[in-house]
């Protein structure tokens, strides 16, 4: 009895240890954002890349701020994010190299279907934010994500300091959860069109787009490799293969051909 138990335990430990770190060299860690992972984009493009190059891309999805931080600490090989200012700052500090713009979608302001703050018809995002402030609730990601950074930059332009106001709810959650909270709270929020299109029906959101098409709301995604001079262990060669593929004709086509369940194109490739 004791022997059997011992043998089983030894076997288990051996099996676990042998498999636990069965990783090959041909793989990289990509720090990215919830919007790209949850929309299903990576599920669509990564198998194509893997088939071509044999490089497996492991995606860790965080907010843009956290994803950049991962790269800075050397815990990722490449970052695929959307907050231009943060990205340029990190490149300038020497943490990343070879930043390339890859694709875009746009942000939209969504609010309750009955539009209590009467935003519909307003063309300027800044005006819309000013009107929402105080007359209705606004849900903020509050997580230093790309969307959160975009939202904060708009507030900055309005001259309003929303933090701490009772109508301003910082939830610290991903985009889709934030939308659901806005729906429950009958509040407005800033979301990316991809997440909105992919989830509004599934989540039964009683909300509509109240403002779209303002150039301010342009949402650019970029990819950049972790600087091998900062972190010598990073798989720079493989990371650059991924970067170059994303901006190649083939990679751009893969992004453009990605559609959600309802047939909407969620990301528009625009690499230069």
């Amino acid at each position, binding site marked *: 009895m004791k022997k059997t138990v011992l043998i089983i335990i030894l076997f288990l430990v051996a099996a*676990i240890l042998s498999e636990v770190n069965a990783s090959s060299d041909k793989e990289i*860690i990509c720090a990215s954002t919830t919007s790209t992972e949850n929309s299903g984009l990576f599920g669509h493009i990564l198998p194509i890349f893997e088939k071509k190059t044999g490089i497996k891309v492991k995606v860790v999805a965080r907010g843009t701020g956290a994803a950049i931080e991962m790269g800075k*600490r050397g815990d990722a090989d490449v970052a695929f994010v959307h907050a231009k200012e943060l990205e340029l700052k990190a490149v300038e500090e020497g943490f990343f190299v070879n930043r390339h713009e890859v694709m875009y979608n746009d942000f939209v302001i969504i609010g309750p279907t009955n539009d209590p703050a009467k935003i519909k018809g307003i063309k300027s995002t800044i005006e819309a934010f000013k009107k929402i402030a105080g007359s209705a609730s606004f849900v903020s990601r509050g997580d230093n994500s790309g969307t959160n950074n975009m939202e904060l930059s708009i507030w900055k332009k309005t001259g309003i300091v929303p933090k701490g106001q009772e109508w301003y709810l910082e939830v610290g959650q991903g985009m889709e959860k934030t939308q659901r909270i806005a729906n429950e709270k009958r509040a407005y929020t800033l979301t990316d069109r991809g997440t909105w299109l992919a989830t509004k029906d599934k989540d039964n959101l009683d909300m509509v787009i109240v403002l779209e098409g303002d150039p301010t709301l342009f949402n650019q995604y970029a990819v950049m490799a972790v600087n091998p001079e900062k972190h010598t*262990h990073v798989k720079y060669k493989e990371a650059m293969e991924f970067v170059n593929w994303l901006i190649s004709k083939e990679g751009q086509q893969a992004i453009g051909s990605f559609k959600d369940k309802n047939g909407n194109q969620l990301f528009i490739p625009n690499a230069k």
Partner: protein
Amino acid sequence: MNSMTEGFLKAFSLIYNLDQELLGIILLSLKVSGAALIISSIIGVPAGAVIGLKKFPGRGFIITLLNTFMGLPPVVVGLFVYLLLSRSGPLGFMGLLYTPSAMVAAQIILALPIVASLCHSAIVAVDPIIGQASITLGATPYQKAVAIIKEARYGILSSVIAGFGRVMAEVGAILIVGGNIAGYTRVMTTTIALETDKGNFELALALGVILLIISLIINIALHLIQRKGMAGTIR
């Protein structure tokens, strides 16, 4: 309510049509938590036994420390292990972040205090007569210790079961150190968290039901072993 019923129905259809991906997720959950539990037990049970049997300076403090660590928030443990294993951290050279090994390490930190502390309690709770009787019967200190541990085995197994419950249900720590990478570090609880984030409530609930069923099966097995242990104890 509708979501709940659908969740349960979906759970059974998922189990029935068990696909490769889900099977991989379930197996990884069992592997990670199993490894963490086995290592925690190998360290925790003897440690608990020593603390329970021996008197030494600082013993009271260690017990208090263990009891405090039983309540460690998983997120804090995750963050601690993350900073430790991060490439910029002291153990970064090992390259363990975002691997199942990192998840095992975090879960050991969570389970070890529970196993050791409850094991210590089980041993302390043994009737002192057992020890006295074994001495009277001419037992060496080692034989006396063995007699006490044998008497406490029911409680010791309980400590392992409690540790198992902690690691199987845990999500905060492994999400941080594992990264929830599809097909590599994605386990049951992190999948449930992800599907909840994505708004797939029925699927998330279904996975929760499956997790519960797995825990039930394992606990039934452990209970059977426990009962066997009880029957063998002379009271």
